[in-house]
Every structure is written in C-alpha cells, then in structure tokens.
C-alpha cells in the first residue's frame, strides 16, 4: 500500500484560491487545504485474501506431510496375514465437509501417496484442518484392526496370532506416533510459523509495479497456484 502527499494538487488549489477561481465552498481567508490520495488499498486487500489462502494451504501441506509420514512408518509394522489390514491404512485430511486422501497402505508395507495438488477451493473457508490416520478391518464380527493393535499379551490365547511376523505387532500406529510426535510438533512449528514458512513464502512472493491514478505503485504479490503439494516424508 502506498500513500502519497499530493503536492501538485495542493499547489494548484493554492493558486486558484489566490486567483479567486476556486469553485465550491470557499475556505476562510488565510486557511490552506490539504488533500491525500491513497492508492493500493485494493491491492492490499487482494493480497491479504491470498495470504489467508496461503496460510490454509501451507497448514494443510504440513498436516498432510505429518500424517503421510506417520502412515509410512505404521504400515511396515502392521501385522500381515491376508494384507487387507495394511491395505486399509489410510491417511486423510479433513477440512469442513471435505475429505482428501493423502496416502494409502500397501500389502508390501509401503504406501501410495496421492500427489495431487491440494484443492484451494475447499480450503478457502475451512475453520479447521484435521489430519487422520486410520486402519479398519473386520472379520466374522471381530474388529481385527483394534484387536491386533491393542492385544499385547502374547500368552493366554493358546496360539500366537498368525499375523505377528517379526518386525510387526501390536501398537503399530500408536508406537510410531509416540516415537515421533515431538519431531512432528517441531516440524509443524517450523513450517507453519517459523523459518520453513518464511522460506516457502519467499518462493511465492513477487515484486510488482503498476500505475494507479497517475501514481506508480510498488507492491508485493503472493503468487501461488495451489502447488503446495505434500511429499509424505518429513
């Protein structure tokens, strides 16, 4: 935004006043008029709107990276028998009534990332952005996902659960979260409000110049096209 003191207009007004040619209400003798022309308000408002969108998109990107990473750490630890439990692994974003898949688990322990761009339209009026990682698997009325996650005791059932191959086991989601939550919070702090945010914002800031009402307006445009894609790893 720029605000200019319009000297030319002021001088013209003073000359007209002296020549008695000033139309409209006449100022009292001895007084002098001052006028301001403010330019850049429209551009400022437009950039502030974009800034809100940018903050929402950036926050969604950060949350997407965290949940994608968490799923990528969980799936290889998920017990495998038929592989359906691993394939049920899902990381998804929720903002308002919109759900966006970030990643899905695969039988081999890896994940498939949805590399599509985050939709700006759904984020525009979002009041919250929520990241979810979930597993769902039921069989014969038994909640396999919960049972394999929560049943820690290896004794008592008579047989060791078939699905517990070495390297896999219960708490396949909670343990990766517990082990990494401090890193995730630090990452979120850095990327949403710290250096990471500054760095990515710099990438999208461009200096612009244009003429407005006879003045030259220099301003900074936040130009991003919704390409704040997530990587799934942090």
């Amino acid at each position: 935004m720029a605000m200019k003191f319009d000297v030319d207009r002021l001088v013209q007004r003073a000359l007209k006043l002296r020549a008695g040619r000033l139309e409209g209400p006449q100022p009292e003798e001895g007084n002098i008029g001052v006028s301001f022309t403010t330019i850049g308000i429209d551009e400022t408002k437009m950039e502030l709107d974009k800034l809100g969108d940018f903050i929402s998109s950036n926050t969604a990107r950060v949350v997407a990276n965290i949940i994608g990473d968490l799923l990528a750490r969980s799936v290889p630890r998920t017990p495998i028998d038929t592989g359906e439990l691993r394939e049920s692994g899902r990381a998804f974003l929720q903002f308002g009534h919109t759900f966006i898949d970030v990643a899905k688990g695969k039988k081999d322990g890896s994940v498939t990332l949805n590399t599509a761009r985050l939709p700006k339209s759904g984020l525009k009026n979002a009041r919250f952005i929520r990241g979810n990682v979930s597993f769902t698997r039921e069989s014969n009325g038994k909640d396999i996902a919960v049972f394999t996650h929560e049943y820690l005791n290896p004794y008592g059932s008579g047989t060791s659960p078939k699905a517990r191959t070495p390297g896999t086991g219960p708490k396949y989601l909670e343990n990766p979260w517990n082990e990494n939550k401090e890193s995730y919070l630090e990452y979120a702090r850095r990327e949403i409000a710290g250096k990471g945010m500054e760095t990515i914002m710099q990438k999208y800031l461009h200096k612009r110049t244009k003429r407005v009402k006879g003045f030259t307006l220099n301003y900074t445009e936040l130009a991003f096209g919704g390409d704040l894609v997530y990587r799934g790893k942090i």
Partner: protein
Amino acid sequence: MSTICNVVASYLETLSATQAICDALGDTLTFGTNLFIGGSEATETNIITIIPYGGSPPEIDNKRQNPSIQIESKTSSRHTGLNLQQALINTLHMNELNGNGKIRANQSMPIPLGVELGGRRMIYVSNYNIKHVKI
C-alpha cells in the same frame, strides 16, 4: 532392576479391599496371583496384567522418561471387566503413584477386545502414559 511397571504394581498392591478397583475385582491385588507384569500364563479368572509398550523417547536431559503401559484384564464376566477397568481408569488417571511420577489414561473407557480363545475370559484393556524420573 525395577521398572515403572513395578512401581504401578506396587501401588496397586497397596489398595485396600474397599477401594473401587479391588471392589470391582472382588479381591485385593497380589503380585503373582492376580496381578502380573509383562504377560501372564495364569489360567485363573479375574486377573490384571501390566504390559509395557514403549512410549515416547526419554527427555534429552536423560533424567525423565515417558513410557506407555497397558493394563489388561481377563475376567469371568463382561460386567466385572468393565467395572474393573473403569475403576482402574478413574483411580489411575492423573495419579502421582505415591510421588513416583504422573500417570495419565489415554482413554476414558476401556477397550473391549472380546473373548479369549475358548470363550472363558473377557478381555478388556486400557492404556496409560506415564511421566517419571528415571528409575
């Protein structure tokens, strides 16, 4: 070597018969009889087992730790299991374990895991995070 599981077990052993946990169980808790650590091969009904499962990393000063534990109950009825686990959550949440740390329940109600193979005992679990000075 003692662990935080031993601290929790010792605390539970001190509870009187009228305390809510013992009242729900119908007995006081005795280590090796109806109270176990790590796992249990006991076939008796109405037992609880404290099982560690990692938790968050220790603090960088290496003086404080943030482990997680699960308390599993195997009971003769759903009613007993539910009441016992609810009493455990109510008693242990934000409990300072006689000055040895602070325990926080991760759930407000227990998680039912169904019936043990053979259909004899009902399994319920509840999970807890503990913050404590390294033992």
